């Protein structure tokens, strides 16, 4: 059959359309750039996959970063003041810092406050507006290895709140169990250098970590309560030698406990599932967070949120991300993947059967009466960084009072820029 001009034009147009279709389809897809915490694959990928399943037109390009690097990496990206990333993980006390510097979009229109614990909304707010989305909070419990206690002939701690151990009891038990020369330790903090983990030492003795207006550390973090609390912490590494020094990688300390090298670990609730999955033979129990005998019980809390870059050009997609990630179903999924303490009321209701264990009974009691969030200040980033290095250095010895005084001065110098 001869090829007519009309037939040629029609077939050319059809070919061109067929070739263009994939590009058209791709152009209709939106990709959101997400910076997330470097939690394990099996805890993050199903979460993100669930969102993509619900929203086939939105793809997530998720970058996960290790805990020790994510905050500084985010600083570099955010200070470039571009649209990258669209969404990012936010440590709740950093909400004020990011919001004050113009790195977070207001989320009031996207969040129904009545669905959340009031403390979660408070942690998500700055200057009366909601800037970050609550995605779980935290609580610490004392994990203990029953076999190591039995082998040393030491009575383990009780799981009952009324039987809460003092730090003095932890030290005594640790001394009787630890054999540092054989790499067997009595006690370790999960986060050996983080203010989140260690501030309760001073707060248990009545210390206040920062001035109420959030702009002064001198006279607060370097006060007698924190000097005493951190001196006790230093003793665990130097004099008593019941804690392994220099273990600043938060992935290592649960490994030490799980592999039977450490009798007690003060760590988050999410470690429980990891221990059961990875160290099935380990016979361990949980007990409440210790306190100083002459003080009062104080426990750390505070949350993982996520925030939206106000410079993002994909406003519809990020709004959908916020709505879906805060939905009941996805929050229940997140709780099952990594059991942080829920901030969404619906999770407490739907997973009520889970909360009947020793650990969750402790958590609920602590959240009601002893939990204390980190100090609220737009300069939290600087506060935490300076204090973290100081706490790390204390393990090697040195005058705790002088070290805290120097840190307090540095903190005051750096926080001053937020006063306006």
């Amino acid at each position: 059959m001869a090829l007519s001009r009309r037939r040629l034009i029609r077939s050319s147009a059809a070919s061109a359309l067929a070739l263009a279709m994939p590009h058209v389809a791709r152009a209709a897809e939106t990709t959101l750039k997400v910076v997330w915490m470097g939690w394990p694959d099996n805890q993050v990928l199903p979460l993100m996959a669930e969102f993509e399943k619900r929203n086939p037109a939105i793809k997530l390009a998720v970058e996960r970063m290790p805990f020790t690097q994510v905050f500084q990496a985010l600083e570099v990206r955010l200070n470039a003041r571009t649209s990258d990333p669209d969404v990012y993980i936010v440590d709740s006390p950093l909400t004020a810092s990011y919001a004050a510097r113009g790195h977070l979009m207001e989320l009031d229109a996207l969040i129904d406050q009545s669905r959340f614990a009031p403390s979660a909304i408070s942690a998500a707010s700055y200057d009366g507006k909601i800037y970050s989305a609550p995605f779980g909070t935290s609580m610490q419990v004392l994990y203990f290895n029953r076999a190591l206690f039995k082998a040393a002939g030491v009575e383990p701690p009780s799981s009952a709140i009324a039987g809460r151990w003092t730090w003095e009891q932890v030290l005594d038990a640790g001394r009787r169990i630890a054999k540092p020369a054989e790499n067997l330790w009595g006690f370790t903090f999960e986060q050996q250098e983080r203010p989140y983990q260690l501030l309760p030492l001073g707060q248990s003795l009545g210390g206040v970590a920062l001035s109420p207006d959030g702009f002064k550390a001198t006279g607060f973090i370097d006060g007698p309560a924190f000097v005493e609390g951190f001196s006790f912490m230093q003793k665990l590494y130097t004099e008593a030698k019941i804690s392994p020094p220099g273990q600043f990688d938060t992935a290592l300390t649960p490994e030490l406990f799980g592999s039977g090298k450490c009798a007690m670990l003060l760590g988050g609730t999410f470690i429980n599932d990891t221990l059961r999955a990875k160290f099935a033979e380990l016979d361990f129990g949980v007990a409440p967070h210790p306190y100083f005998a002459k003080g009062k019980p104080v426990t750390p809390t505070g949350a993982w949120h996520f925030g939206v870059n106000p410079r993002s050009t994909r406003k519809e997609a990020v709004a959908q991300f916020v709505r879906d990630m805060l939905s009941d179903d996805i929050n229940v999924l997140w709780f099952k993947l990594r059991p942080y303490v829920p901030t969404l009321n619906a999770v407490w209701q739907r997973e009520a059967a889970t909360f009947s264990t020793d650990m969750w009974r402790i958590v609920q009691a602590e959240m009601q009466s002893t939990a204390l969030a980190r100090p609220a200040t737009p300069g939290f980033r600087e506060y935490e960084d300076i204090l973290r290095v100081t706490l790390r250095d204390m393990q090697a010895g040195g005058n705790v009072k002088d070290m805290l005084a120097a840190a307090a001065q540095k903190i005051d110098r750096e926080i001053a820029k937020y006063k306006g």
Partner: protein
Amino acid sequence: MHARRWIPYAFLAPAFIGLVIFRFTPICLALSGSFFGQSIRGASIFVGLKNYAELIGDPSFWSTVSTTLIFNLIINPFQVVCALALAMLVRRPTKLVDVFRAAFLLPMTVSIALTSILWSILLDPTLGPVNGFLRFAGLPPQPFFRSAGEALPTLILVATWKGAGYWMVFLLAGLLAIPKELDESASIDGANAWQRFFGVTLPLMRRPLAFVLVADTAANFLLFAPVYIVTNGGPNDATHLLMFEAYQSAFAFLNQGRSLAISTIILVIILAIALVELRLFRSDDGSAA
């Protein structure tokens, strides 16, 4: 003839353009940036000499300068001596000399970041194999990076492990360029090995040594990765070097102006020390090294 006058400049142009883009421009930007501050919303504010004045009045800055100068006073001659010793060892074409040359060069192939991570694991006081070996040998375990007294010497040793092989290459080239006849005639005249080294070899190594010392000085003043990855400037600021302070000022404390002021001061210090070093290597007839 007139038309060919531009030819040398044409050959030099690519390197010069590279220098302008990657060296001179950033230096000018850093210098101008050091006269500015930043609001918390990112707006630049001209502050004049305020950043420099604050640094001069800051005791922690002077402590950092002191640590950095002590670090460089030790590591620069130490690394050059080590590099020269290695170069002397692999200078003669003996059996297996290529194996040894490759072995000494191997650390150079590992990035500084990976070097830092590897050595922090090896030297971990609790779990590290180095202390495991010391215990096995009946020696007391050492804190290495975890001790304020040992952290800086440990950093010097790790940086030397990484850098000595690299600088050895330049010194080896210098040694191989020395005519063998000079050494032979000194030997015939009765000079022993040490006399030949100090009387013949070292004077003829003046230029390579000057180059290596100046370049090594610059590299060590700019050392950052091991401090960032392993020590965070500690313990108790024992390894708090100027480059780390510049990084912290910019990315931890969000003070770009202070960071650029520190960078400018580092540049001035390097220039001053380099001039002193070049002067030391000036030959007796006054010609430059």
